[in-house]
């Protein structure tokens, strides 16, 4: 359990949020052109990093907005929070 600072509402308990998984996976621009391998990569393969991970969260029990979080998955420490569409902070 940890505290997440929603960029719209401020600090709230993690239980108010829904985790949305790895961030910055780009949706294919031309889905019809994709090979099976590329589909598998897009749909299923994940970095699943132990350490600094960029991920999406949704404040479901609050403003219901999506945003990005940089979190150390080895100890759940949050390093940065930034809005959708903003450039990720450099490590």
């Amino acid at each position, binding site marked *: *359990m940890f505290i997440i600072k929603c960029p719209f509402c401020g600090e709230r308990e993690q239980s108010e949020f829904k985790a949305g998984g790895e961030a910055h996976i780009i949706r294919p621009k031309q889905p019809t052109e994709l090979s099976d391998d590329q589909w598998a990569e897009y749909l299923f393969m994940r970095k699943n990093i*132990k350490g600094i991970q960029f991920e999406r969260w949704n404040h479901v029990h609050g403003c219901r907005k999506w945003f990005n979080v940089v979190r150390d998955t080895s100890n*759940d420490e949050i390093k940065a929070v930034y809005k959708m569409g903003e450039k990720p902070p450099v490590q």
Partner: protein
Amino acid sequence: MKNKYSIFSLIKNAFSYHENWQKAWKDPLPKKEYDVIIIGGGGHGLATAYYLAKKHNTKNIAVVEKGWIGGGNTGRNTTIIRSNYLWDASAGLYDHALKLWEGLSQEINYNVMFSQRGVMNLAHNLQDVRDLKRRTHANRLNGIDAVYLSTKEVKKFCPIINTSPDIRYPVLGGTLQRRAGTARHDAVAWGYARAADEMGVDIIQNCEVKNIKRKGDVVEGIETTKGFIKTNKIGVAAAGHSSVLANMAGLKLPLESKPLQALVSEPIKPIIDTVVMSNAVHAYVSQSDKGELVIGAGTDDYVSYSQKGSHDIVEGTLNAILELYPIFSRMKMLRQWGGIVDICPDASPIISKTSIKGLYFNCGWGTGGFKATPGSGDLFAHTIANDEPHKLNAAFNINRFVSGDLVDEHGAAAVAH
């Protein structure tokens, strides 16, 4: 040669105050080279090494473990064993394991305290009833024992369940697999470690893998905290850390590692002589031989390797437990912990070759790997020894995420994963 464990050896050792028992396994330093290296000294890894030595005549095997034997997820699960899975591929896999469990204590001469006390799954709404009936039929077509129980029969089988129609999620029925049950989880790791050691397997503890070395598309060996070890076959059975090892070899897996929590209560007299699981309200409970209630909670929805989970998950599970078993309302919980489980998108495991020659993965067991330990080890050993899968694990290859031929057990497998 190991001394056989028996009633006579117990009596003999009692005379020397149990101070002269033989070591269960050696603690060797790694050799320069092995024919096969298994990464991960949990139940699955040790079972793999044991069956490789026993059934496939592989001589030169090492198991490398970053901690100590029995200190990982093998010692963190809630010890439930069952095979009542919906799909044919899963039924084949898990029932193969269940059949091996039935003779395991004798085979490895180690009492794993396998107890076929039955596993009951509850239905709390109309859709649950339909799903559970469908699964019961599917199980029986696959030769797996399963019966559907009415609310009355549920109450008769486990009298402490609150079957009042007035609770928030009333019990509308359930399924029962009588051959299912529990086993002492760390004894499974110790038993396989001892049996593998006797077959000549080197069990190397406190040896963390730092890198997997490959030359092109062929593995060369592993860098560890105890130096470089050469090999041309590596089997990875590292549970929650599978992706970390895959990344070392430059592979990506379809896994997410999440905390799964469990807790045990203070010990009490026997009150529940079976395992009761409820998918809809997410509460599992059984009672250990020490008398503790063993309670399984759900996973958190975020990736984490912290071995901690969120409090609200435990709270949700205990709410459900208290509504189903009001008798437990004043019990104290003694311990709570988290383990990191690697979850596949289809909630089925991967026992497979990879695109790198000599690198094999046994992962993705998610929240339910313990029950499969002997079967997983047997089939993974077969896959490594023959460089091709056994027919029972052919469906669990890594290419299913490319072909789309998934074994979708999410929600179908009697519990939500």
